[in-house]
């Protein structure tokens, strides 16, 4: 059963196309990671799915209905941005307020206990630490016993221990049959939680696959060097020559360099750099991989190349 769906959904802000004909389906019981750099369109897609914004074109559905219809949202849980909690209200009051919207909410004490917030019931949210606020924000997504939770960057800015506490809570929910769509710009987080990864870049879905498949692609390195002639090299997914420099995108930079040396190829000025997530995907998806292009302009996506953590 499909719980959430986007069909050719686009969203435009003024001149900026934040989301470009995105298709996505989330079925019951899945734990899907939405991975992409900042500004890729993850939050926009989330906002469409929870009914905060209308798609400029295309459609979005939640439990088969329009997300903007309150009835469609009865079985979802959403996390407010941690900075958005009303600072003067107490932790218990915030939970009670959200609970009032659901027919069968999780009892307050049980919920706060599950997220390690039991001692803070009487504290005003404005006085909480960043980690506590973030935990409360995520806890609110689970108040109404949802079937689907949508978590937009749930652990951004958390320390390792707090992050693992939240991961455990998300896993426990999924083990009980819950469905999760979570966005992150940490590959690590998506690897730790998700089974399926949807990679978004520049408003488009670049890949929709298993974690393993995506990890293979994201592990791509850019090896660049100056050489006249190259032997057959292992693991090269794309080759291009720009201003006399050869750029090789490879899944195994170590093996490639070893092969270069073993073949005694004359080369100079060797560089190995990580590719950004987006770059790796754009390079691989935009056209003829494995086809050495002897002349030719650099593909726009391959022009960046700063070391970026993904």
């Amino acid at each position, binding site marked *: 059963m499909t719980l959430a769906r986007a069909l050719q959904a686009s969203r435009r*802000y003024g001149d900026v196309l934040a989301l470009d004909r995105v298709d996505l389906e989330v079925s019951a019981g899945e734990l899907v990671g939405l991975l992409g750099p900042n500004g890729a369109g993850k939050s926009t897609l989330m906002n469409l799915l929870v*009914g905060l914004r209308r798609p400029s074109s295309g459609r979005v559905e939640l439990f088969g209905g329009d997300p903007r219809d309150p009835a469609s949202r009865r079985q979802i849980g*959403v996390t407010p941005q941690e900075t958005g909690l009303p600072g003067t209200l107490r932790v218990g009051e915030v939970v009670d307020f959200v609970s*009032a*919207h659901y027919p069968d909410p999780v009892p307050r004490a049980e919920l706060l206990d599950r997220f390690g917030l039991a001692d803070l019931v009487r504290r005003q949210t404005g006085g909480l630490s960043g980690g506590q606020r973030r935990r409360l924000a995520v806890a609110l997504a689970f108040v109404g016993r949802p079937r689907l939770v949508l978590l937009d960057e749930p652990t951004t800015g958390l320390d390792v221990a707090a992050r693992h506490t939240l991961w455990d809570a998300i896993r426990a929910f999924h083990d009980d049959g819950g469905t999760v769509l979570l966005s992150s710009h940490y590959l690590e987080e998506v690897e730790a939680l998700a089974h399926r990864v949807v990679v978004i870049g520049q408003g488009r879905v670049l890949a929709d696959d298993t974690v393993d498949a995506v990890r293979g692609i994201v592990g791509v390195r850019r090896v660049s060097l100056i050489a006249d002639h190259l032997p057959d090299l292992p693991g090269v997914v794309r080759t291009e020559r720009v201003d006399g420099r050869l750029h090789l995108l490879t899944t195994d930079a170590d093996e490639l360099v070893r092969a270069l040396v073993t073949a005694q190829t004359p080369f100079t000025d060797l560089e190995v750099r990580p590719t950004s997530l987006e770059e790796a995907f754009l390079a691989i998806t935009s056209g003829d991989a494995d086809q050495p292009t002897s002349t030719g302009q650099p593909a726009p996506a391959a022009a960046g190349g700063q070391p970026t953590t993904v």
Partner: protein
Amino acid sequence: MQLALVHARYQLLEIIRIPVAVFGSAFFPAAAMIFFVVPFAGDDPVGATYATASMVTFSVMSANIFQYGVGVAEDRDQPWNPYTRTLPAGPAPRFAGRVLAGLALTYLSLIPVVVIGATLTAAQLTPAAFLLALGTVAVISVPFTLMGLAIGYSLPSKAAIVVAQVVFLPLAFGGGLLSAPGDAPGFIETIAPYLPTRGAAELMWASVGDYRVEPLALIMLGVWVVLLAALAAWAYRRDEGRRFS
């Protein structure tokens, strides 16, 4: 309905935890009472009663324009507001809650004006007229609530503060709230019936004294209500929270 009360309760909680906010909307009309009404009309029972009713109108207007205009605009800036829109409730409970909380605060902000009127001036009112005036306050809140909502939903908070401030003084003076009924300077008497403040003030005057309302002012008040309701509804529909372009 249950949910509307929940929303009203938490909105009041949020406001009351910062008491200065409540103090603000009560201050200006109370100060105007002390500086204008007490020294100039304080000894005349009829004049003081009308003047107090004018100040009540003033207070209702400023409380509502600021509360909704600035309050709604600021809420739209807060990430909490979009979050509440993801909860499985339509806009009605939150809206109704806001109006209930707004009405409660309006009555609260009237207390100083009424206390000053009762203790420092010769103004007097029968209990029946007092109840009638209480009801009239709810009625005349309507146009100013709509005006506040139109401002709050169509402008970012910094612009909303300015517009609320720019709007409320001319409305108060132009509507003749700062003069006795029929006693304002000539040009004000000419324009007053066309402003929503005048119709509202006439209703207040009629509720506390032997005042015959001018039909033109009431008709115009009705026109304002329809206009402002349409504007507020349009601004609300257009709103998707804070926008960037």
